Each structure stands twice: as structure tokens, then as C-alpha cells.
């Protein structure tokens, strides 16, 4: 593998892993606080799945540069994280959480479907494996978007407020990394603009069917993944606290 391809791929795996890791933590914050027991369990399941996906991506990165996934997850500072800002925003209410998970699930399912054809076999295999779980996530979250959108005036209002807030942030998922085009040229990762077309098709139809309006004013759209909101810092402070408390711990 050419050095510039390897470098770009390491950066991509890091971004993919960080999206999953940060979203997983926000979902996990609901554990014990879900609206009903069944949904508490369901979201904990989703959080665990996303964490598993982060492990897969960091595992692929390890194959390239020998980095330790646990070190990256629990001992890296917020300035080094490459997740999209959408995923680090505080969990908000149930509508906010379900909408974010839905918008991300559609993106992830579209990206993975395309990535199954990657010329880098370990990535193609991982995409096929993760996609199986994503299909179920998507069914679950799209059912919630529909029910809250079409539910009561209050549930619709909350869903619409979440959409107005998140729509601009979500666009960052389709901003390529600095050297991502090298990977696209080698057919290692899918072209994000094609993924975005599929994503838009699905989301606009489903959101409208759920009586939600796409915001006319898209609002703030983050660009580079090198900067973050203040929320990432506090999220990591909590997520990493146990591991950092005693980095040499042999027994917990």
C-alpha cells in the first residue's frame, strides 16, 4: 500500500470509529432513563452495537499502524478526535436522540452498502458485517421518527425542533476528509456525494411522510472534523475517567 493511501486510510478509520464511539456514549447516557423499559433496553443494545462498530474500525486501523484501540478511545484528547459534531451534541430529549440516531443510521446504512464493494478487502468485509446490524437499527429509529412526527402536537413539535437543530450539523457527515479523494480514486471508500444523494432521498421522503418540514434555513454546518463543540470535552471527561483514573490498573 502506498504511504499516502495508508495515511489517508488511517485517518478515515479514525473518523469512522470516532463517530460510532461518541454516538454510542450519548446513547448509553439513556441507560436507566429510557421512556419505557423496552426502549431502555433497545437503546442500550444500539449503543453497544455502535461501540462494537468502533472496535471494528479501530481494529482495522491497528492492522495498518499497530495503534492500540483502547489507548485511542480512552487516552486521546478531544482535539485529536475526528467525529462529526452532530454526534457529540448533548442527548437532549427522546425526540432529539431518536432523530439523531435515525439520520446517522440512514447515512451509515448507505455508506456501508457502497463500502461493501471496497477494493480493500478488510474494509469490504467489515462493511458487510456491520450493515446487518444497521438495517435493524434503521427500522427501529425510523419507526420512532414516524410515530413522534405523526403522534401528538407536542411530539411533533419536539421532533421538528430537533430537526431544525440537527439538519445543518448532519451535512458534515458528507464532508470528505482532507485526503479522502485518494481513497475514492482507489475505490477503497465510496464517494460521499453519491452516499449523500441516497441519504437525502430516504430522509426527505420519510421526514415528510412523518409530517416534518425540512428546514429552509439549514443553519450552522460544521466543515472540518478537527474542531469540535465544547460538548466533546465534557463527554470524554466522563467516558475516559475510569480508564485514566489508574492507567496501569490490573484489577478493577
Amino acid at each position, binding site marked *: 500500500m502506498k504511504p499516502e493511501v495508508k495515511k489517508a486510510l488511517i485517518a478515515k478509520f479514525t473518523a469512522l470509529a470516532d463517530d460510532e464511539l461518541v454516538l454510542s456514549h450519548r446513547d448509553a447516557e439513556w441507560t436507566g432513563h429510557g421512556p*419505557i*423499559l*423496552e*426502549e431502555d*433496553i*433497545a437503546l442500550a*443494545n444500539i449503543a453497544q452495537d455502535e461501540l462494537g462498530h468502533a472496535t471494528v474500525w479501530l481494529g482495522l486501523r491497528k492492522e495498518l499502524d499497530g495503534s492500540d484501540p483502547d489507548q485511542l478511545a480512552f487516552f486521546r484528547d478531544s482535539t485529536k478526535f475526528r467525529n462529526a459534531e452532530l454526534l457529540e451534541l448533548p442527548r437532549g430529549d427522546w425526540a432529539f436522540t431518536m432523530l439523531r440516531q435515525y439520520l446517522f443510521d440512514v447515512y451509515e446504512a448507505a455508506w456501508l452498502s457502497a463500502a461493501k464493494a471496497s477494493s480493500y478487502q478488510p474494509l469490504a468485509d467489515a462493511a458487510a458485517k456491520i450493515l*446487518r*446490524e444497521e*438495517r*435493524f437499527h434503521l*427500522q*427501529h429509529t425510523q*419507526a420512532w421518527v414516524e*410515530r413522534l412526527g405523526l403522534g401528538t402536537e407536542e411530539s411533533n413539535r419536539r421532533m421538528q425542533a430537533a430537526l431544525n437543530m440537527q439538519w445543518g450539523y448532519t451535512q458534515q457527515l458528507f464532508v470528505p476528509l482532507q485526503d479522502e479523494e485518494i481513497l475514492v480514486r482507489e475505490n477503497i471508500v465510496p464517494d460521499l456525494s453519491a452516499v449523500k444523494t441516497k441519504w437525502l432521498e430516504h430522509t426527505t421522503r420519510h421526514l415528510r411522510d412523518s409530517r416534518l418540514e425540512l428546514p429552509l434555513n439549514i443553519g450552522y454546518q460544521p466543515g472540518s472534523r478537527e474542531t469540535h463543540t465544547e460538548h466533546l470535552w465534557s463527554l470524554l471527561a466522563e467516558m475516559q475517567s475510569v480508564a485514566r483514573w489508574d492507567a*496501569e*490498573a*490490573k*484489577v*478493577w
Partner: protein
Amino acid sequence: MTDTQLPRWEVFKQDAPNKPHQAVGSVHAADPEHALLTARNVFARRPQAVSMWVVPEAEIFSVTKEELVKGRRPKAEGEKAINYQPSTISKYLVFRKTTHKRSMTFVDYVGELGALSPQDALEQAQQKFTDAEALAWWIVPASNVAKSDPDAQTVESWFGIAKDKTYKQQSSYGLVGTHVSKLRGLGGEDEA
């Protein structure tokens, strides 16, 4: 106090294509699709499954062996009154409990039949399914059963994943839960 719970649904899980659907427990959910989604999360994330059914508990007619002896007719699980048209034949699903052995499941699916009413379905079931003694019967109008999608991609996404995952005991997670004595010699202050 007002009950804020969503309606309760009984969940039936099929472990393999040649096995019957078995009652494994219940979930609260807003509608049939929601009930299936939550049932999958609660009952099939790890254990093996190929299909799931859900039924609103109020639509289930249940009767035990003891109740039949006393001459009681099947009654709905819930208190909701349901008006059936006794003049038309409709389909019913029949479930039966045959053992007192301690188990994670209650009744097993034994078959489907056409009947005029739940009572009629029960009487037919007693004639038809005689291979084992019935300790309890559940009679469910087929129209009230919501089933998971049999399409291969859905089956894979809902149930296939569990095959690659295994239950792990705490002790298999390396450091977590490992007794201090096992780590002697690895360095650290415990060594002294």
C-alpha cells in the same frame, strides 16, 4: 392512579424453522410493528431465533386444565370485552402448555384451525391435539397476530447476528472480575 403503560403484547419466539413458536414473555408497545421491534431487542438479541410473533394480551383467550374441570369457558387475558360474530368461521392459532417443568417458555404453538368462536376453537383443539395432555390452552384470533418479516434480509438482520455472539461469563472479560490471586507475578503492589 392512571396507568401510563403502553398496551401489553405477548411474544412468541421460534428458535429454529422446525420448532414451534413459544410464548417467551411480554413487552409494552404502541402498535404491532413497535411490539415486534421491542420484542426482538428484549428476547432475541442474543438467544437464537428465526421468527417472532406478537399478540395484544387482551386478544388472547386462555384457560387452564383446572378451569376446564370446573366448567369455565375460555376468558380473555385482559378485561377488554370483545364481540365476536359467531356465525362466521375465522382462523385461530392454538397454543398449548404440556409440562410443569421449569422453563423460560409457557405455551407452544400447536396449529391453526377455523372456528366460529374461541369456545368452538377450544373444543376443536381438544379433539385435534391429543398427543399430550394440555395443562393450559391459549386461543388467539389469527387476525390479531403480527409476525416478523420472513424475508431473508430481515431474518438475517433481526436474528442472524445473534449466531455470532455468545453469552460471556464475567470471568472471560480478562481484567474485570479477575481475582487478585490470579494476577500475582504480573507486577504491581499485590506481589508483595
